[in-house]
């Protein structure tokens, strides 16, 4: 029976061609990213492109290299090989991995926002929530207390953080609120690129949904380019325009989010999608 169906022929989809209609250059372009940690090849030659205003989802199991790739995008780590370009003023055509530590820090502070799964990585737990947001602005050189205050308040408000608690330390807040503080900090300077590393993992389902709502609303209102890493297909499906499926340091499949979920090609993606559905 199976054999009978099996003769139906090749099911390899037609290969895609480079963009023809969209002439905008990708905002983010990574090529040939390789990274080895001892014996383990965390990234085995990864290419990625993200267009302005787009949300790229990256899915994969633990150890697939998705978080390593995101850390590279945030210039926290340098690969053994590969290049990274952002189409932003002053840095066009420049491999960002060649920047020195100071340049990286300034670039990250001004251009890249990040929300970590673990708020301890992104927040100073003892400082006030508004102060955590203000720090970003201080690094960028803002020296007016009133402006700091206003901008921190605006960013927290945009993240739907309850303003009466804006001066409470994150240590006293719930997980969902901590993620909102991280988000406010990330968007305070209107970043070119927003990186999200499992931003809702570990939150209650209802809280997770609310945080995703906020992210989605911000994305639509401000057309922020985002890269979202998650092992949760539901999160990716809600948020992403395109998705990249990673396994063992390689991209095994990428495509429009509905296509990857409805017509997955790679055995691993099929397994992933069917396990979830």
């Amino acid at each position: 029976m199976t054999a009978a169906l099996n003769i139906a022929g090749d099911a390899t989809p037609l290969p895609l061609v480079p963009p023809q209609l969209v002439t905008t250059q990708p905002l983010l372009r990574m090529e040939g990213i390789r990274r080895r940690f001892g014996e383990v090849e965390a990234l085995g030659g990864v290419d990625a492109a993200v267009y302005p205003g787009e949300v790229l989802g990256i899915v994969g199991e633990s150890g697939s290299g998705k978080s390593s790739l995101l850390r590279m995008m945030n210039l926290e780590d340098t690969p053994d090989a590969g290049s990274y370009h952002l189409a932003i003023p002053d840095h066009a055509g420049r491999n960002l991995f060649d920047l020195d530590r100071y340049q990286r820090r300034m670039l990250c502070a001004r251009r890249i926002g990040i929300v970590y799964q673990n708020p301890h990585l992104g927040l100073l737990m003892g400082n006030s929530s508004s102060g955590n947001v203000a720090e970003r602005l201080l690094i960028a050189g803002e020296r007016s207390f009133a402006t700091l205050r206003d901008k921190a308040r605006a960013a927290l408000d945009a993240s739907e953080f309850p303003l009466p608690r804006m001066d409470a330390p994150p240590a006293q807040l719930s997980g969902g609120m901590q993620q909102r503080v991280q988000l406010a900090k990330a968007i305070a300077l209107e970043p070119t690129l927003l990186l999200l590393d499992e931003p809702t993992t570990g939150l209650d389902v209802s809280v997770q949904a609310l945080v995703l709502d906020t992210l989605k609303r911000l994305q639509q209102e401000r057309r922020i380019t985002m890269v979202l890493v998650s092992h949760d297909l539901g999160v990716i499906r809600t948020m992403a325009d395109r998705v990249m499926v990673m396994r063992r340091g390689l991209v095994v499949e990428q495509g429009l989010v509905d296509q990857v979920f409805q017509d997955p090609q790679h055995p691993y993606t099929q397994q992933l999608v069917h396990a979830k559905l």
Partner: protein
Amino acid sequence: MSLASLTRPWAAMSYGFLDASARREIRRKLIKAVAVPGCQMPYASREVPMARGWGTGGLQATLTLVTPESVVKVIDQGADDSVNAASIRKFVTRVSGCAATWDTAAATLIQSRHRIPEERLRADQVLILQVPDPEPLRRVEPNISAARQMHADADYGRLWLTLYEQIVRKGRIMQGASYPSLVNGRHVITPSPIPRWDVPKLNMARHLTILSAGREKRIYAVPPHTRVEPLVFSDRPYQVEAHRGLTCARSGLGGFFMNEIPQADGGRIHEVSDSNLGIKAIRIAEGEDETIAETWYRNGEMQP
């Protein structure tokens, strides 16, 4: 040829107590510190006959710079006659043969704990401040390697953040002594625990200031005519202590930094913190031949 002919004659101790190699090292680190204003230079803080934390850093800088022609003044919180100041002054004169004075204007070398004298220092004078904790980033970054990287990157956002937090929580900046200040637009220093009153005296000063921490083994400097700017928000101006309207109960001086002295009846009186300034004022009032040099503050206002 004997071995003795190759060595120097034995002496009970080197001039100025420190041995030649220690003085040479500190001299070199001082030159570096002057060359990169505000940058902390590590040095091999030597043993001196005094406990760490009692001014050993300042003492080593003084012992390195002292010559038989030097005139040394040592103050502790503005006073020349405190036990610690007197002991250090006595030690320095004994090991170097230099002269000692209480008069700021007469001194060439001033070692101080927590104050800068009120009389304006000249280009031929050197101020040495004792520093307990030289690292302004200590409270925001306990890891010293990370803190050094932050200095290298001029990454002072977290320091500004502490000031932000103080205003948010208390309505004003609570930092009293050791007010973090940006030197030459590049390195943030802690100006040792001098009061806010004294920080403007470092800005574009005529004299050289050396800050030395013996226990922490760091030397840094504010060379003459160098900008020293306290970290402040553009809409929250820097404020010195509100001592402008206080009057010294003993000398009658006003408009200088005061010590508060609680009274048995629950009240309080004030006494000028720069004790030699007070003494001069009393002597002038008693008709003695004494002059007070130009002061940084006049009527409680910092003079340009």
